[in-house]
């Protein structure tokens, strides 16, 4: 579409009162500064005045009459359908986003991480990860008692060079009558 054609369309829209905002201001400046545009606007207004006087249509808005003749209901329906489609698409996208957000949040709550599941720890890992281990809360005995806390450690290598992790442990040693407490040096 050429600039001249576009300008003509703009002036026609301006004459019909269809413009507003920046478009209105731009075309208003155009018809004030451009002689051809100004002449075209005057011609359009003269034609409109002539038509109104000839048919004595008074204040009837010709645009509305023409639009109704064309099939106003079809245009409105098409516009409504397009709007409805856009709304359905936006609401659908929002629901999908919402479902994804809830899904990720629930996974976060359940797993403590998002998007990546930690491998199931082995028993030895669980044991060493537990800083507290076994706790002796209370001992009641008439005999002498000693409590030995054995920290987690790694055992020496076996014949194949494999080592194993020793879980932390507790020994409650209760002397039996006059039994002496064992030597604790290895």
């Amino acid at each position, binding site marked *: *579409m050429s600039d001249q054609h576009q300008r003509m*369309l*703009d002036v*026609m*829209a301006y004459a019909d009162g*269809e*413009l507003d905002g920046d*478009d209105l201001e731009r075309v208003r400046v155009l018809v004030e500064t451009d002689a051809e545009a100004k002449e075209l606007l005057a011609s359009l207004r003269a034609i409109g005045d002539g038509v109104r006087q000839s048919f004595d249509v008074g204040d009837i808005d010709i645009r509305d009459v023409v639009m109704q003749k064309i099939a106003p209901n079809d245009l409105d329906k098409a516009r409504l359908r*397009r*709007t409805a489609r*856009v*709304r359905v698409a*936006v609401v659908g*996208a*929002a*629901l999908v*986003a*919402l479902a994804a*957000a*809830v899904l990720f*949040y*629930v996974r976060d*709550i359940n797993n403590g991480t998002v998007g990546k599941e930690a491998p199931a720890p082995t*028993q030895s890992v*669980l*044991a060493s990860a*537990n800083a507290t*281990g*076994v*706790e*002796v*809360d*209370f*001992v*009641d*005995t*008439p*005999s002498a008692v*000693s409590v*030995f806390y*054995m920290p987690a*450690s790694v*055992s020496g290598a076996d014949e194949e060079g494999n080592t*194993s992790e*020793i*879980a932390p*442990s*507790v*020994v*409650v*040693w*209760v002397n*039996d*009558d006059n*039994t002496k*407490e*064992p*030597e*604790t040096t*290895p």
Partner: protein
Amino acid sequence: MTSRRVRKGGVALRRLFAHALLAGALAVLLLPLAKLASAQPPPPLPQRAVVEVMVLHATQNAAGGSIGPGIGNMPQLQQPPFSAFNTYRLLAKQSLTLQKGVPMTYTLPNGRVLQVTLSNVLAGPRYEISAAINQPGSNAYLNLLRVTTPPNQTFFVAGQQFQGGVIIIGFTLH
């Protein structure tokens, strides 16, 4: 008209943007509800456990030590205070199913009676266990021992005299 079409396109875009903003706001408002729903208290822990009781006999053998069959891999025996002995023999092994608050008894090879009670199951889980070792009609040996232990970790009660050595009782909760 082209300008009208452009203007309508702009309106449609603004409407689309407004809908997107509305949807985002809705998601932000509903997320705390999802948090609230997922923050419901966890189901109660089962108030039961299985305790594996292993009774060992530890002695010091000048001719050389050994660890008897059935004991399995128990590297704690190489550490103090168990390292004071070099020979270990499995006397008995028993699994007891514990219900919270219900004492279970087990007769040890030396005639004393071991009583084990599951006092509580805490989050983790961690088990609160009470144990007592006594002999009816005789002096008390262990009136009460209370420990809190995670599963699969063994704790020991040791020191009872028996056949020239001592009895070592290992407790492992499952």
